[in-house]
Structures are given as C-alpha cells and as structure tokens.
C-alpha cells in the first residue's frame, strides 16, 4: 500500500515523539537554551518563543510504569498525569526550566498540586483558563497572559516585547499553515501520509525548536511532492477525542486496513486549524482570543458542543470520512459526557462511530485491533 521510501523529516518527527528529550532539545540545552514545559494545548507557545525559550509540551513518552506516582493519585484518576508525574519523579523532566499548567481538567490541576510539592522545577505556574468564549472571558485570559508575561520576564530575565510576540505569532502561524497544507493533501484519494505519520508531525511540533520545526515542515512538504501515497485502504477514518500523543496507537488502528485521514484531537488539528489573528494590534489580546475563542474548542469549553459537532461534520465531509473513531482516556468525564452527546448526534446524522477507551500507555492493542476490525467490517457492509 506504500510505494516509496518515506521522507527523512518523518523520521525526525517520529523520533521526537518516541523520546522525551529528543536530540534537538538536547542540542538546545547544550547551547545554554532554556525550556518551558506546558500541559495543555491552551498554552500560548508564542509567548515562550518570544522570550527566547523553547516551548515543550509535556507528555509521558516512554513511561513504562507508574510505581512512583501511584501513591499520589487514586484509582479513579487518569493515566496520563500519572505517567507524566512518574517520569518527573524519576528525573526525566529535570531538563525543564519552567512549567505552565492550566485548570484544564481535574486530573491535571491536581498534577500541579503534586508537582509543586514534590519537584524542584524552578518556575511553575497554573493559569485560570475560562470555560466560555465570550468577550469577558477573553479579557480575563488576557489578564492571565499579562501576569504570565511579567512573571516570565522577571524570572527568566528576558524581554517579551510586543514586537517579539508578533514575530513569534507570525512564526507559529506559518507552521500552522504548513501543517494545514499537509492536511489538505490528505483529502485526496491517495493521501501522502498515514494518520500515525501525521500525528507524529503535529506532536513533534510541540517538542522541537519552532524555527527548526518550520524548516523540517518545509522539507517534508517538498519531499512529499515526490513521495508515494497511501491507497487501497478499506476505509477512511477520522479520530476524535482529547489527549492522544502516541502515533503507535493510530498505527494499531491503521494496521487493520483503515487509513486515518483527519482528526479532532488536542495534539492534532485543534492545534492549528486556525491562525492567531495578526491583524489585532495588541498581541496578548490576539493570543487570548485565539486560545479562548477562535481555535476549535475541546470538550472542556462547555458552551461549544455545537461547534465541536459541526467541526466533526465538516471534517467528515471535506475528508470523505467513512467512520469516526472516538478515543477517550479512561476516567475522563469531560470526554465521557461528550461521548454521550456525540453517540446520539452522529447516529442521527448517519455517521458511523466507534468509541474506544484507552489508558495512556498502550496496553490494550489486541482489543483495539479486534474492535477496529469489527468496525471496518461494519463500514464495509454499509458500502455494500
């Protein structure tokens, strides 16, 4: 199904996903660069870039167990923060010079409470992210960003002027445009990348220095022009849900013959489907508006279920999707209730849906394969 050798950039992206401190980060640190981690796609990475620091989205790649963090969490807590804290307690996050969290969800906000008590990261902040997208919320979040700017400037002794923010916004927007370009190419009958490869591309964008990432994306787009394409798959799939940073999970799904052609994920299209509005004069207002109101919302933004449904519908139409795979981390209530609504609405709209629960570390590959296989058969039956 795959015709020619894969572009070299895909290997770099894939490597960046599989390890915590990838060679680019190691090189950055080796040059005396500093790294600010963050735990949610609501983080205005442009601010970190503007400060001359490296934004690094925290994951738990390579975590094999949770022996150290189990004492901190209960049995009904999500496995993602459990694995992330475990890695941190093992020293794997010692390379961070700072960390920014949000009240993203119950599990992550308690991760903050444990992090500040048990780890020595020099600069740790939790920001209050609204759950609505009205002007008052944009204004509130702008205030949060303004405080963060002051605190970062003071702690890291860096300048974060409006001009530097504008430059950083332009750089990140340019990368978003290239990522969208990749998505556009997946709309055709023969998409040039698999879903797993595409997820590696977007995840790597949260783990590599932005300038370097931008160059790699350029290279990838050029290489893909000459590269082969994927065809002959049994079905075109869309993956929807929240946190999913492991391309291997999509590989398991795709191993059964389906091809993931698009997504609605926090590490996927939600990161870049729209740009920060560069026409807004005040860059902090532009960032606040983007991260609270303009970008595609996740399940935490409670007033915007209709938009999320519409987003999935439009993806299904544009990418000629045969079926949606909804993936949820066990114990996630936000996406749990979303699943209830989506199940009813996608059924009403005639869009086939498969719901999968997962743990952060991929331990149920066999079960996923079986369920995806059955789903693909069901899709095949629909197509006659």
């Amino acid at each position: 199904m795959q015709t020619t050798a894969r572009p070299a950039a895909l290997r770099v992206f894939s490597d960046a996903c599989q390890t915590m401190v990838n060679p680019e980060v190691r090189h950055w640190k080796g040059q005396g660069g500093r790294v600010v981690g963050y735990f949610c796609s609501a983080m205005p990475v442009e601010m970190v870039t503007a400060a001359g620091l490296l934004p690094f989205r925290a994951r738990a790649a390579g975590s094999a167990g949770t022996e150290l963090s189990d004492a901190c969490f209960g049995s009904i807590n999500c496995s993602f923060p459990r694995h992330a804290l475990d890695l941190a307690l093992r020293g794997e996050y010692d390379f961070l010079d700072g960390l920014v969290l949000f009240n993203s969800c119950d599990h992550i906000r308690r991760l903050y409470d444990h992090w500040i008590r048990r780890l020595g990261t020099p600069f740790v902040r939790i920001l209050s992210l609204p759950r609505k997208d009205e002007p008052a919320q944009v204004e509130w979040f702008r205030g949060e960003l303004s405080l963060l700017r002051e605190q970062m400037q003071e702690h890291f002794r860096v300048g974060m002027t409006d001009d530097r923010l504008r430059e950083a916004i332009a750089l990140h927007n340019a990368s978003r445009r290239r990522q969208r370009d990749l998505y556009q190419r997946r709309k055709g009958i023969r998409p040039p990348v698999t879903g797993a490869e595409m997820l590696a591309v977007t995840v790597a964008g949260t783990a590599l220095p932005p300038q370097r990432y931008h160059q790699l994306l350029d290279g990838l787009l050029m290489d893909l022009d000459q590269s082969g394409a994927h065809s002959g798959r049994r079905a075109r799939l869309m993956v929807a849900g929240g946190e999913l940073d492991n391309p291997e999970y999509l590989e398991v799904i795709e191993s059964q013959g389906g091809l993931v052609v698009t997504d609605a994920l926090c590490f996927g299209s939600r990161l870049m489907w729209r740009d920060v509005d560069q026409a807004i004069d005040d860059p902090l207002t532009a960032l606040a508006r983007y991260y609270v109101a303009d970008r595609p919302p996740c399940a935490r933004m409670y007033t915007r279920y209709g938009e999320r449904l519409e987003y999935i519908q439009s993806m299904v139409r544009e990418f000629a999707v045969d079926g949606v795979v909804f993936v949820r981390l066990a114990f996630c209530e936000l996406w749990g209730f979303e699943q209830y609504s989506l199940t009813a609405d996608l059924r009403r709209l005639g869009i086939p849906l498969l719901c999968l629960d997962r743990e952060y570390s991929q331990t149920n590959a066999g079960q996923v394969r079986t369920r995806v296989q059955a789903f693909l058969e069901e899709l095949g039956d629909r197509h006659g």
Partner: protein
Amino acid sequence: MDEKKLKSVSRMKEEIAIFEPVLAALRADPGEMGHLQAYLIENLLDNHRRIISCVEEGTPFLASQYTNPVEILTAMDVPWYFHVQQQFAAGGTGGSVHTEEDLEEMDRLGIPSDCCTLLRLLLYYQAAGLLPIPAAYLALTEPCDGVAGLHAAFMNHPDWRDVPVFCPDPPYHDDPRAYGYYAGELKRMVEFITRHTGKALDMDRLKEVVAETNRGYELWFEYAYLRRAVPTPHSYVMPMSCFYILNTGGAGDPRHTQWYRGMVANAEARIRQTRPEVPHQKVRLLWYDIQPLFFGELVPWLEQEWGAVICMDMVSYCPYELIDTSSEDAMFLGLAKRALNHSPMIHQARGLAANAIEDITRIVRDYRIDCVVFPGHMGHKDMAATTSLAREACRELGVPFRYIGMDICDKRYTSVEEIKEKVSRFFAVMKPGELAREAWPSVRVPGDVSHRLPA
C-alpha cells in the same frame, strides 16, 4: 396540564406524598427537635409546590444550582429548582422506590460508567422527561469536570436545546481580581434572568436578603463552634444535613434564620446540661468528602456501634464570611466570593488541593478529631488525587486516616455493609479515641463570633 408536563413534576409530587405523613407525625409529636426537622421538610415541599404551580400555570421558573447565588434569585423573586435534587433523594437515606430501576435505565444510556453516577442519573431523568423544563437555565461548570461535561450534554437534549442558558464562569484563583471577574459574571447573570423572566433586581431587596443570609451564616458559625465541644452536642444527621436544604430552599427567609437560631439554642442547652444527643461518645470523626447520609443507617451505626460521632464534615465546613451590604458593588463582590469560596464542594474542589488540606488540618485541631474518614465519591476525580496529600497532612497531625471509595447514588459500587466492614477494621486496628473523654469542657458562647472565623 399535558402529559409531558405532568410527568415532569411526577417525582416532586411523589416526594410530597411521601413526606406529608412524616410531617404530620412530626407536628403531632415534635419532641425536642422535631419542629426543626419539620421546618426542613416543609421548606422542601413548599419549593416543590411552587414549581408545580409554575408548571401548571405556565409562569416562568428557572433550573439552577445552589452555587449560583440564591440571594439574587430570591431578591428577583424567581422560582427555581435545584435540578440535581432528585439524585440526592435517590441516593439518600433509604433511597427512593425508583432508585434501582433508575440506575438500570441510566446504565442503558451508554455514558461511560466511570463518569459520575449523580450526573449520569441526571441525564437519565432528563431523557425520561422527569425534570420540569424551565424558562431559562443557570448552569455551572465547577467544581469538577463532570459538572462541566454534564451541562454541555444537558443542553444538547432536544427538549432543552432551546432553553436559554447562562453559566457564570468561575475563575481558578482566589484573589481580588478573580472575585471582581466573577462579580461581573453575576451581573451578567442578572441581566440574563431579567431578559428571560421579565423580573428585575431591586437592590434594596437584595440588601435585605443578603442581610438575612448574613444573620443565618453568623448563627451557622456559632453552631459550628459549638460542635467543637467534647462530647459534641448533636448527632450528625440533622444539623449537618441541612445546609443544602436551607440554601437550595431559598435564601433570605427569616424562618431559615430562626431555624439556625433553634439549632444554636438547642446545642447550647445540651452543652450546659451535659446532655449530648449521642451518649457515650468515644471517637470524634471528621468525615471528609461526600456526606454519610447517602448510606442510610451508617450514621446511627457509627454512633451506636462505635460511639463515633461526626463532629464536622466537608460540606458543613466552609470559610464563611459575611457580605458587606453598603453598596451594589460590595454586595456583588461578596456574593462572588461566597459563591466561589463558601459553597460546599466548590470551596474544597474548585481550586488548589491546599483548600481541602488546610480545612482538614484546621478541623482536626479545632475539633479535637481522633480520625479522618475520607469517603471518596467515584465522581470526585480531583478529590481522589487530593487523598494522598490529606493522608500526609493527617500523618503529620498524628491522626489516623482512611480512604473509602464509594458512589453517592449507587450502592452497587460500595455497599453500606462494605463501608461498615472497612470502618470497623480501621477502628479496630487504629484504635482512635481510646482516651476516655469524661471531661466536659465549658464552651464560651460570646455574642461576637467574628474571631471564630477560620483564618
């Protein structure tokens, strides 16, 4: 009334039918505290009747949460109901006759079973048409993800999709900027209510209502202080279960204040006469997280089997402050602070884990607690991740700590018998409260309670 409307109030009518004979019995033989119990029931039933009447007559009413300042709704004279109340009845003492059937129907909805049962049940009630459809809906996104997720799903139901909704957005921080932001949200809530009910907010009336709730809160401090006495004057059941009822039942009612006054007077009398409601108290318990009332006979069992009295619990212990009524802005700021910081569960679960840990630490010290039981509801994911910090705090305080996972509405998760077994083993091993407490220290009851506010 059409069939749909009739069905929507059917559970309220059932509750009225169940409680009316209880009320009659209490009135006939009130005993020492029956009049206080009777008032709670009257209050609940009056609210039900008010909503039923709105549904029958087609007059506007709201569905809301106890954390959206009740003072504002009262001052605007807008009837409302707490749409999570039915679950409390379902999970409460003895459950309801429908509990088993409701849970089974709820399971069929297909919501992941690790999501909060209380909230899944609400979606079932909605799907089954058992909730009266309001003119407008005041939602909530705190204190937990389940609540935020639920409201998104709730608003998507075909019968509710067109109901106008407003949800104040609580910030995560506790500082003047956060309170100011939330006060703005509350003002926007008032505009919303006016737009959809035609009722305006009279500031003089709001001032009256807030002044009355201030009096109630002042008496609540007093009462909470009296429970520090050894032995503690009252059992857990009645006084500590009233908070929700009094607050969801409408703020600013002088009868509520009178109720608090009655509780204080009775507690004082018992202390003076060395006549605790629970005799032979051996263990002073802090019951943190969900209330034990959801497990029927648990409290009487604790008291009778082990002489264990719950001196304080999470829901009853909040850092109440009185509201400055000198200006509109001051009142809204105070209401914002009260909504964010003083509402049970919101205070403990909305913000940092430190809120809960500091509470536990203060309660253990102030109430001379022998041991802490942390009955973690399966929906309280944040609390589950707070438990280890609570355990550490208790270790430092030298107080035994026991976490027991349970489900507020579904006894299939952890049965009452299992809880009893775990508590018994805990008591047997840790031997809390072994020291006999024969002394009955005098408790000063000064008029000014401000010095007793938690720091």
